[in-house]
């Protein structure tokens, strides 16, 4: 008896699905790059220079550098979230792409894994774009910034897995507004993207300390400042934990949804 709760069974058959998504993405790369990559960079520059001109240094770095660390995490989070929610729902529900794939030797476990890896790939691309701007503008000269590349992938895996839980229970696209308004936007404000967490009341600081985006930013910000992050193993473990838990929960929910 195959249970909805059994552990994921993975295979390399997720690769052709990744290639399918990449083939679709290549056809719309122009608008995708503009929307998901240029947009956060424009915000970062606008706020960084505009607001940064009025602010003293924060945590030993100019405001724009402070903001750049937040932007790497924020934009990688957004890329993965949008991908698994809107595009993932399109593939699952609107276009019935999953249904077509399930008639081949590929299983739902492979599909769910491919969704997460694909969304993380888009996060990686977002991370690289912001990083390129950081280097071009000379916001950081530290070789430690190279660690932002695997970090983008990890943040992508984490938020792809969490977002897929929403996709699994969504009746339609409108449902995703709840996730962005009630979870993503408050998280952006609580996790230190725009201002340091220690400006928050103590209760909110406690809430902030368990949120995945805080762990991501606690890794990214020191790296930009040429410092090895404190407790980096703990932050990595937390992000991995969110990713694995999200993967398992979304897989169970999707197994249920697709066996109806």
């Amino acid at each position, binding site marked *: 008896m195959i249970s909805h709760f059994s552990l994921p069974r993975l295979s390399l058959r997720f690769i052709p699905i990744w290639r399918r998504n990449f083939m679709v993405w290549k056809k719309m790369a122009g608008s995708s790059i503009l929307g998901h990559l240029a947009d956060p960079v424009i915000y970062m520059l606008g706020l960084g220079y505009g607001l940064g001109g009025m602010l003293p240094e924060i945590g030993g770095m100019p405001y724009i550098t402070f903001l750049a660390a937040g932007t790497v995490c924020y934009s990688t989070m957004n890329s993965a979230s949008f991908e698994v929610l809107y595009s993932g729902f399109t593939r699952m529900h609107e276009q019935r792409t999953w249904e077509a794939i399930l*008639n081949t030797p590929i299983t739902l476990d492979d599909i769910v894994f491919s969704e997460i890896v694909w969304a993380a790939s888009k996060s990686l691309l977002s991370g690289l774009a912001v990083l390129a701007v950081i280097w071009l503008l000379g916001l950081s000269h530290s070789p430690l910034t190279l660690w932002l590349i695997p970090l983008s992938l990890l943040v992508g895996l984490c938020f792809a897995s969490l977002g897929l839980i929403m996709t699994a229970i969504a009746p339609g696209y409108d449902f995703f507004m709840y996730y962005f308004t009630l979870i993503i936007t408050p998280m952006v404000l609580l996790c230190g993207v725009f201002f340091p967490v220690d400006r928050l009341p103590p209760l909110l600081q406690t809430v902030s300390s368990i949120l995945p985006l805080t762990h991501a930013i606690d890794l990214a910000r020191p790296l930009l400042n040429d410092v090895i992050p404190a407790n980096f193993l703990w932050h990595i473990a937390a992000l991995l934990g969110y990713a694995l838990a999200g993967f398992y929960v979304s897989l169970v929910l999707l197994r249920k949804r697709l066996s109806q």
Partner: protein
Amino acid sequence: MDNVNTVLSARGLRKYYGGQAVVDGLDISIRRGECFGLLGPNGAGKTTTLRLLLGLITPDAGELRLLDHAVPEQSRAARLRVGVVPQMDNLDPDFSVAENLLVYGRYFGMSDAAIEARLPELLEFANLAQKRDAKIPTLSGGMKRRLTLARALVNDPEVIFLDEPTIGLDPQARHLIWQRLRELTARGKTLLLTTHFMDEAERLCHRLAVMDNGRIISEGSPRELIGRNIEPQVVEVFGEGAAEWARSHAAHHAQRFEISGETVFCYVGDAQPLLLELQRQPELRYLHRPANLEDVFLKLTGREMRE
């Protein structure tokens, strides 16, 4: 497996949704090279049966083997040698005709070179050689169906599952699909199709199973089903007075009759006495024809609407 020529066998297959049996003790055995039709009204459990047979959902009871693999446990291995034409169109709208075939072939682990080598034959089979680079939204309904059929053949499967393969198509498009399906059986492929078009079942299928409420209620060749279940001749009587006439007279001349709206269906072994009677009733019009699969279907599953 009962013998080497059985490609699919199911015994006592059951699936419940919310305490309700959607598939309720199904036994099916399909031989290599035959076209097997699963007939039934909407909600009879046809699509659920197909999903069980492919290992996409887990049965609550029963034993199932497809191409010598236990399903659902080894359904991945079984699906490597199966092609599926789903009821709802799920082609990739962002891709061209050829790209759809390429991407789908990769799901079976085929190399790009192996898929490319099969492309001309598949496009030819689907009458889409001229549309190789066309985008999916520009194709007609018939073209999309043919491409879906070609896509199901990309891995050169031994068994092909077709769920309502001609639904929503115009007569020209349906005839072309039927021709292609006959070509496939001529090549030795095994076909399992669901349909509620009786002419489709009668034309294509070597054997049929009529399904209702999750059970098979009759099984055999189209001729056997007609011979076993129904009188050989049908006289349909129409007109305003038809129902009234039937209530007083039909029983004298027909073994069995049914009144459906303003039409009376009379089922008879010998139609002559009834035709003579009808010639004496100038206000009634009638049609005399041999019994067909639709008569069997309606007798077995009833005339009331299924929604």
